[in-house]
């Protein structure tokens, strides 16, 4: 089979990671380096200590070789995450606004650039875990709202969407099919009911005649 069933209409977590690695991050090069012509956006010429925006995959590659430091994005701070966590608790029916790829980016930076964090990485880790759990519970509660027409899920990130996608798609599809078959049944019964109605009308007419 050219594409396994679990990959149809869905992505693997690794593929979501892959998409997250296309996102840009800021780095501070430790050495100067020539750029390179690439298939996509070219790698810029790097000058020592001059900030430059490059894709995450390239940043981690250079980081592994100890060629640069990564500027950890503002949202990966204890203060920011704590505010988001409080929001999650305060508004039980809403997802707080986190970056589209917050999970994979946070994981990648914690794994490869934990020395670049300003706040202690273990605190960030535990906050991320709290956020993840509270949002997971919400997403699961939201499943109760599933219907055959549509569902709105503002604020979920791509990784979170991908996790619940197979379940939601299947349930909505089944609900839709059940609903459609109800409709077909109703349409089939309509003429019969109408006919029954007419019969009754005639009967009552008869009654009148009889009374006369």
């Amino acid at each position, binding site marked *: 089979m050219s594409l396994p069933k679990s990959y149809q209409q869905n992505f693997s977590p690794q593929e979501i990671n892959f998409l997250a690695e296309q996102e840009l991050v800021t780095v501070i090069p430790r050495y100067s380096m*020539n750029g390179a012509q690439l298939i*996509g956006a070219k790698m810029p010429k790097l000058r020592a200590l001059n900030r430059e925006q490059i894709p995450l995959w390239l940043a981690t590659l250079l980081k592994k070789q100890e060629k640069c430091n990564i500027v950890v994005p503002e949202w990966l701070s204890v203060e920011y995450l704590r505010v988001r966590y409080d929001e999650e608790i305060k508004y039980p029916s809403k997802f707080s606004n986190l970056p589209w790829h917050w999970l994979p980016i946070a994981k990648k930076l914690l794994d490869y650039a934990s020395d670049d964090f300003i706040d202690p990485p273990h605190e960030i880790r535990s906050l991320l875990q709290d956020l993840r759990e509270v949002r997971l519970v919400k997403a699961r509660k939201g499943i109760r709202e599933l219907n055959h027409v549509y569902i709105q899920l503002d604020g979920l990130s791509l990784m979170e969407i991908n996790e619940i996608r197979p379940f939601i798609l299947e349930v909505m599809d089944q609900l839709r099919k059940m609903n459609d078959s109800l409709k077909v049944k109703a349409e089939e019964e309509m003429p019969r009911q109408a006919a029954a109605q007419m019969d009754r009308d005639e009967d009552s007419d008869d009654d009148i005649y009889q009374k006369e």
Partner: protein
Amino acid sequence: MNFDDILKEFEASKRPGYNEDERRAEDVRLLVDAWVKERTVPELLPYEQELIDRILIRIRKQIELIEMNSIELQTHEREIKLRLVVIESELDRVQFIIRSYTRTRLQKIDKYSLYIRSNDKETAKLSNNEFAYMERHLELLLELYNSQFMKNLPESLQAIDETGGGVSMIDEPDLDRPVFVQATAENVVEVDDEEIELTKNGIYVVRYRAVKDLVETGDVRVL
């Protein structure tokens, strides 16, 4: 150079496609989009011929570059080595998307061969290679069916594209499958006589048929 020229040049430089590097960046973005779209929607989408052609040429050039440089590598210093690692990593990434894009399409082509062949609009979505593949694949499949069991069946039961009797033997993409979308503009779509207001940046799960046109115009993007 007068003021108008300067203005014109400024505007041209903002247009995508003006600058070769921007165009390359844009092409990879488009490729990623095409891949995500093909993976998430139930139907086969038109083949991105020009985009893929452009990228394949660039891939070939990168491979040549790597081969040329790795021969002389022993004498060169480490900087080139790192550059080659970067070039190779990116090459791998782009090739991965192209492969996955192709596999996704082949899976749909296998599944919907009979439907695609019966419909000119669908056939037009295939590249020449894909069309040749589909024909050959179907031919082999029929040969196999015939030699294994079909020849033993009564002739009236040998058809593989019967549509009578309320059940069609031709698999068609189910456009009513739900998809995850994000609205990039405000719109109203109708599902089962219910109106759904799509607000900008909102994330929805709706059946593909309801947003199909908006996916084409780019007013919603599939996730």
